[in-house]
């Protein structure tokens, strides 16, 4: 950008929310079209492609993340009402849920402990610092919950937000193949596993498979947010005392 006029316009736009918001929606729109073109191949996950496009664009133009987030925050904010909105599919699946409350409770509690325990232990095993271990611990919970817990147990909340997204993508990309491999065919079991391990991004993927899998994934994501908030700080104390 040698033209000073253009550069001025860019500097102005980069600092206003309009640009960040617009490029987020455009990137996601392109990524989603690409995903449909690939016949819903989970490897072409729209979050991966749009995040890659946006980071590329920001680095190329020398725009900082803070400037981008001026606009990005409007999309980010909607995570709150979207969490509340999960009550609706949950309510619609209630009759099925009532039959399964005991298996759901057992799977959820074990899933939450396995998710946090294994990530702390593995990070320590491979030589990660305590800060990294604590930032990884709540990675399977939904972003706002995970950030709160990370702060409480001594992790870096903003790094946790990134790890949460990468975890969700990993779960969404690998999930259906893994379930095939271990021969789990029931949509309720697949949904619970997806929601516990990969929160909202996994839930978005689950809704593409079936509405039942989506509802159970949403349920698991919501309840494991609760369970993570209660159990993980306690689990961290316990693991530190023991090892």
């Amino acid at each position, binding site marked *: 950008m040698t033209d000073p006029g253009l550069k001025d316009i860019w500097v102005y736009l980069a600092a206003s929310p309009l640009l*960040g918001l617009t490029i*987020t929606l455009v990137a996601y729109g392109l990524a*989603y079209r690409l995903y449909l073109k690939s016949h819903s191949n989970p490897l072409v996950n*729209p*979050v991966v492609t*749009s995040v890659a496009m*946006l*980071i590329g664009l920001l680095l190329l133009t020398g725009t900082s*993340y803070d400037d*981008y*987030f001026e606009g*990005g925050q409007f*999309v980010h904010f909607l*995570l*709150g*009402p*979207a*969490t*509340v*909105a999960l*009550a609706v599919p*949950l*309510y619609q699946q209630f009759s*099925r849920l009532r*039959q*399964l409350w005991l298996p759901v409770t*057992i799977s959820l509690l*074990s*899933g939450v402990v*396995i*998710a946090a325990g294994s990530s702390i232990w*593995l990070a*320590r*095993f491979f030589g990660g610092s305590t800060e*990294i271990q604590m930032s*990884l611990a709540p990675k*399977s919970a*939904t972003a*706002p*919950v995970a950030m*709160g817990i990370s702060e409480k147990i001594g992790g870096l909340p903003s*790094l946790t937000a*990134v790890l949460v997204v990468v975890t*969700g*993508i*990993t779960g969404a990309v*690998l999930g259906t193949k*893994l379930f095939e491999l271990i021969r789990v065919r*029931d949509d309720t*079991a697949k949904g*619970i*596993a997806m929601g*516990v*391990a990969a929160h*909202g*991004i996994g839930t978005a993927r689950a*809704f593409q498979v079936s509405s039942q899998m989506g509802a159970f994934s949403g349920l698991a994501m919501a309840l494991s*947010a609760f369970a993570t*908030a209660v159990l993980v*700080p306690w689990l961290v104390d316990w693991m530190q005392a023991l090892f």
Partner: protein
Amino acid sequence: MQFLNGITLLLIYQLVGEVTVRLLGIPIPGPVLGMVMLFITLMIRGAAPDSVEQASGALLSHLSLLFVPAGVGMMAHFHRIAEEWVPITLSLLLSTVITMVATALIMQATTRWLVKQPMTEEQSND
């Protein structure tokens, strides 16, 4: 108008959730409590109003979009991630796979053991 009413209601539940969590010092995020309260309301009412159904459908059908700005945050942490990429990558990948496999198998096994006549999707009379 329906959609607007629905969004407004979702925001009100979130707001009440945030305020309650702060007032009572509950270690749970406000939106999660808001969700529980909306769920209880729907149970008591016995039906989800069209407005709430529309708004929740719109938000949930593109749930993954909402994670994009947080994902872009990766660029602010390149340095930290590059420093400890081995433990981060291995822990994240293995732990996610272990959690998903274990939870799915536990759910499948406990459903078979604990629920009499496990219902399949084909059975429409539930």
